[in-house]
């Protein structure tokens, strides 16, 4: 029997604020344990939350970027459960009136666009971090993360393969980065993903029994965990078994999913409106203010590069994957470079260089206008492409402009025919054998003449011009 995989993802994204969602503690990652905490985020008796405006702004921006309908009347609710890293015994979250609902993300499936629906985007506070002692004797709790603002993005069960799941996550991350909403660093926990997965016979409409997957700390692992889990479920179903509704953990060492076998008591979160916070009324002016900060999103940009700049799909995809790269590229083009030339330079030379040095594009010493200047030098024939690559490396290291380096490196190309003609005529006069060979049909002999000319000019002659001038003189 063939099965169709049905996947839904729940993604938590930490918002890029300076302070926590309900108090003035900092949100920086990596601070010593329990140093970014205060009476409010510790939930000390008598303390009260006050909402961080920037957290709401970023949540609104995310909801808009994910094409959600914004709830003009939003509110906060308490989600009640006990856990040592949850200081108040409840998490302030949003239940029935989240910031945004009913949106979608488009992913690119080999040139085809697919929409993955989004059920909701809601704002909530993060919990602290529990460190379980390896010997199982105790757990240590650090509350620094408690109260860091999060949005939870819940997808519809529209994802049909583990690969689609990865593409969805990549698209989501890219949107969050474009909008400067989150760092999306999975290794630091600023993006976390849980997955629901079930199988159903192809053609069947009803969903099968699902399992929930946790503990996947990279996009690659999300895909692997889902692949493993889809296989596992298919084997069980084919053998006539049934899937147990449970939470499973991805085990990186074995690349499998393992049942968490918790004594699963039925969750009853007893949501109710948070009485310590007032409602949010999001008016048109607020929406307009946020809308004005929305950048062109990755897929829109990609389409525009293909449509307006005539770039191949591949180039457009690579250049728009990261907002900083796209912005860099656009500045190179704006400084006058040819779109495709600029794309080649940015994709292979610049990104290649940054990749080997581990720099980010913002740290690159070659600024976009400088790269455009280098491209112009090649275009004008002042230097060869091969020379340009050397100049580029020097630019990367020194940050100097191309013309300066071309001079310094003594590689100014000679294209001036009045300079080249006497040299060429001298070379022809001294190499009658080569001229003879060429005239007798040995094409290779031309190369020898060009080579002599280059030698005579210490490699500075413009090869194209040299070629032309020699041919004019020796062609039978």
């Amino acid at each position, binding site marked *: 029997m063939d099965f169709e995989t049905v996947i839904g993802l729940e993604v938590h994204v930490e918002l890029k604020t300076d302070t926590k969602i309900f108090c003035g503690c900092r949100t920086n990652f990596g601070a*010593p344990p329990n140093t970014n905490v205060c009476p409010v985020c*510790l939930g000390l008796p008598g303390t009260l939350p006050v909402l961080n405006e*920037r957290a709401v702004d970023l949540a609104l921006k995310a909801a808009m970027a994910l094409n959600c309908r914004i709830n003009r009347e939003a509110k906060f609710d308490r989600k009640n459960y006990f856990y040592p890293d949850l200081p108040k015994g409840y998490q302030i979250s949003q239940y029935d009136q989240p910031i945004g609902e009913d949106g979608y993300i488009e992913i690119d499936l080999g040139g085809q666009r697919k929409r993955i629906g989004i059920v909701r985007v809601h704002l909530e506070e993060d919990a602290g971090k529990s460190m379980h*002692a390896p010997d199982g004797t105790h757990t240590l709790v650090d509350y620094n993360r408690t109260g860091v603002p999060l949005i939870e993005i819940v997808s519809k069960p529209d994802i049909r393969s583990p690969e689609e799941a990865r593409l969805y996550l990549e698209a989501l991350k890219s949107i969050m980065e474009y909008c400067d909403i989150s760092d999306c660093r999975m290794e630091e926990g600023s993006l976390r993903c849980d997955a629901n997965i079930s199988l159903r016979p192809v053609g069947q409409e009803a969903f099968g029994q699902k399992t929930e997957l946790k503990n996947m700390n990279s996009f690659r692992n999300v895909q692997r965990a889902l692949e493993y889990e889809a296989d596992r479920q298919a084997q069980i179903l084919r053998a006539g078994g049934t899937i147990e509704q449970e939470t499973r953990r991805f085990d990186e060492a074995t690349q499998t999913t393992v049942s968490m076998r918790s004594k699963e008591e039925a969750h009853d979160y007893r949501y109710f409106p948070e009485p310590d916070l007032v409602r*949010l009324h999001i008016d048109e002016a607020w929406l307009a203010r946020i809308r004005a900060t929305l950048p062109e999103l990755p897929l829109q940009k990609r389409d525009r590069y293909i449509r307006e700049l005539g770039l191949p799909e591949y180039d457009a995809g690579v250049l728009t994957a990261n907002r900083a790269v796209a912005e860099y590229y656009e500045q190179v083009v704006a400084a006058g470079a040819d779109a495709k030339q600029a794309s080649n330079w940015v994709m292979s030379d610049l990104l290649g260089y940054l990749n080997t040095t581990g720099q980010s594009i913002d740290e690159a010493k070659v600024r976009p206008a400088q790269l455009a200047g280098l491209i112009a030098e090649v275009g004008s024939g002042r230097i060869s492409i091969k020379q340009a690559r050397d100049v580029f490396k020097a630019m990367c290291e020194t940050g100097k402009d191309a013309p300066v380096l071309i001079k310094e490196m003594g590689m100014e190309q000679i294209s001036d025919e009045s300079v080249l003609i006497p040299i060429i005529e001298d070379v022809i006069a001294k190499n009658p054998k080569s001229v003879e060979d060429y005239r007798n049909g040995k094409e290779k002999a031309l190369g020898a003449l060009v080579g002599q000319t280059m030698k005579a000019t210490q490699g500075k002659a413009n090869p194209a011009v040299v070629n032309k001038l020699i041919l004019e003189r020796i062609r039978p």
Partner: protein
Amino acid sequence: MKITHETVQHVAKLARLAVSEEEARQLAPQLDEIIGYAEQLQAVDLEGVEPTSHPLPLVNVLRKDEPRPSLPREEVLAGAPDHDGEQVRVPAVLEGYGE
């Protein structure tokens, strides 16, 4: 809704209160009387009435994203029944417990 001692046990569990079987039998009639009294609301027609969760009609109370000092860690841990000098210590949390 009759509050039985089973209901009491279930609710106590949710609220992380240990209630003995005997306490549950004592509490059940008391809670039943109180919930029973509250059930007079069921007899009132409340169709279409908006719920009030706040006595004040305030909206959009927000603070700027500006840091304020945190507590020194000694003060954070001062009241903790058990800690290692940096973090609060509790008995081992079983995987998947709670959330």
